[in-house]
């Protein structure tokens, strides 16, 4: 039905101290273009694993199922090919790259993706212009660009840096893995503004969160509940409010 993102029967496992541990146990999820979907669910339900598998992390072994993205077999692609195709993952815990200048990293990434997409690379001046516009829009200071990637950044700064990368890389599918956790209201606002600014008929987002608050700003088209490695319930934006009040207990019973 949708040729944007179509996940069907996805099973994946990870090697846990020598024994394979199944984490995704048949995920079915369809995200049409132009929509923002949220995934909520208790800890350990497989939300982060789903985001890693979609982005191509090699630690996870997909044992069955399929993922098509814009008509392509996503699972057959290398992580950088997925990035070029438009998949962006905002990390729950962004990684530090000592000695690597943030602006240089961003420019290298932007140009790698532009090259792969057949666009002209940005020169130093063009890049600076674009990045300045982006930081301004996200009300962030340029000072962050001069530092090393995520090194010595506060939790909030790391998340903002992820949003800046997302803005610059212009993805068509943004996956936010608990980007809102540990953020104050202002920072939450920046994350939401970052996603909302990208909203278009050709952009979709998959937002993993524990909190209703981010969804207040994002106003998702669909909300899914994930438990024990599967999507167990789906509904509209009101579902998130329901969970906020009642918790997951009723859905867990349903899934069992």
């Amino acid at each position, binding site marked *: 039905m949708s040729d944007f993102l179509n996940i069907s029967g996805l099973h994946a496992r990870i090697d846990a101290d020598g024994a394979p541990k199944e984490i995704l146990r048949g995920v079915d999820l369809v995200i049409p273009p132009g929509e923002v979907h949220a995934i909520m669910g208790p800890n350990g339900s497989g939300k982060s694993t789903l985001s890693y598998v979609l*982005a*191509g*992390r*090699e*630690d996870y072994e997909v044992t069955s199922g399929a993922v098509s993205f814009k008509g392509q077999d996503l699972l*057959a*692609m*290398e*992580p*950088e090919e*997925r*990035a*070029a195709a438009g998949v*962006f*993952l905002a*990390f729950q815990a*962004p*990684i530090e*790259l*000592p*000695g*690597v*200048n943030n602006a*240089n*990293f961003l420019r*290298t*990434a*932007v140009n*790698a*993706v532009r090259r*792969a997409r057949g666009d002209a690379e940005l020169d130093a001046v063009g890049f600076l212009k674009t990045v300045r516009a982006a930081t301004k829009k996200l009300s962030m200071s340029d000072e962050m660009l001069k530092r*090393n990637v995520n090194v010595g950044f506060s939790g909030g700064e790391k998340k903002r840096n992820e949003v800046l*990368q997302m803005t610059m*890389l212009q993805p068509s599918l943004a996956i936010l893995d608990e980007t809102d956790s540990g953020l104050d209201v202002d920072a939450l606002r920046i994350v939401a503004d970052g996603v909302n600014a990208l909203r278009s008929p050709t952009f979709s987002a998959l937002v993993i969160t524990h909190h209703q608050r981010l969804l207040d700003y994002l106003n998702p088209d669909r909300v899914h509940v994930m438990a024990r490695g599967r999507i167990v319930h789906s509904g509209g934006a009101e579902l998130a409010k329901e969970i906020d009040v009642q918790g997951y207990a009723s859905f867990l019973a349903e899934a069992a």
Partner: protein
Amino acid sequence: MPAVTETREQVEKLGQSSYKWGFETDIEMDFAPKGLNEDTIRLISSRKEEPQWLLDWRLAAFAAWQTMEEPNWAKVSHPPIDYQDAYYYAAPKKKAGPKSLDEVDPELLRTYEKLGIPLHEQALLAGVEVPEGEEARMPIAVDAVFDSVSVATTFRKTLAEAGVIFCPISEAVRDYPDLVRQYLGSVVPVGDNFFAALNSAVFTDGSFVYVPKGVRCPMELSTYFRINARNTGQFERTLIIVEDKASVSYLEGCTAPMRDENQLHAAVVELVAMEDASIKYSTVQNWYPGDENGLGGIYNFVTKRGACRGARSKISWTQVETGSAITWKYPSCILQGEGAVGEFYSVAVTNNRQQADTGTKMIHIGRNTRSTIIAKTISAGHSDSTYRGLVRILPKASGARNFTQCDSLLIGDKCGAHTVPYIENRNMAARVEHEATTSKISEDQMFYCRQRGLSEEDAVGLIVNGFCKDVLKELPMEFAVEAQKLLQISLEGSVG
């Protein structure tokens, strides 16, 4: 899975053909007969029309060498070297007479052009022929050494106007015999070590620099070494003397054709810094490293030492070592003058079957002398890399300080990194600090970079350059850019 294998295969292929400087120049050469004996030395000396004192000096070195044994304490291994199975003199044949740039064999000019070393002063001076996208470069004076001899030295006039002497050492012997005689072997004596003695006996050419009192050398000086001929050793000798309150920045680069046999490069570099003088010596060493199975490559056995003779003098070594099958090299500083400063910044990269044992010696003799050592070691493939350093504080060096930082980065699980610091402190009023770390490029870092669209190679390049940043920033601007690219090329094929 197949996609991953394919990528790896491609990457591996890249690794094999990534040495871009491996071509050979077809040029008529003048060889001395193979082998090493007094006759070889007499022949070299007579070819170069040397005075008797230098021949005697060489013969003394040869006599010393014959009593010495090849050092075996470094963490490197190689089959025994047959010193009789090499040519000790190989020079491009040329017509007699003095050389100006116009008279240099066009084949040689083309060789250096291919290597990216411009020997045309005009093009550089005019500064108009800057290719699109490239920034205008500061002119750099170049001494080009091809196998055993210097073939061209640029910008000599400009330098002479400032009083700076920059010429092949063979010419210096002829034109400035007193200077050469006074300083040659004064920092690295003929019998200093096995390879230095060998060099002293058979050295053929190299660069000579003299910066007189109070003169800041108006441009960067640079020597570009090229081994071309088969079965030859290259033994160059560099001597740099900087008088009171004078300064110079000197760079050296080197490449060689790809060959299956190993070739020996045993150079000696001597630096002398007088009162308030400063010498910055930068090296980008890119000799042919051998193939991925360890076949061929240069044995780079080099003695480099600087003497900070005057008060407040400063010698700074910066090296980026990516080439050679084996590197054995310890650029050192003798900190004699009060308040003298020694620095050593090093990046050593080994891949495939390369071996590197490199580091420095900081000998603190004078009061309040200071030294800084920052050594970054990157090992990939089946390579082995060792940092070996000595910090020696002598009894009179009150107030001496040293800071040493050694960081190793491992790529893959078949390589080795070792740190062997020696600290000898004989003065309780001195301070010596040593820090060392070993790390691997984490899967998290690789995945993060690739998720942002970077290829594996680009990701490794970026992370490695970040790791080396403290050293690379010490290089002159243009070299820093070269070095960054070189690091990436050297590590091609190292991931996966």
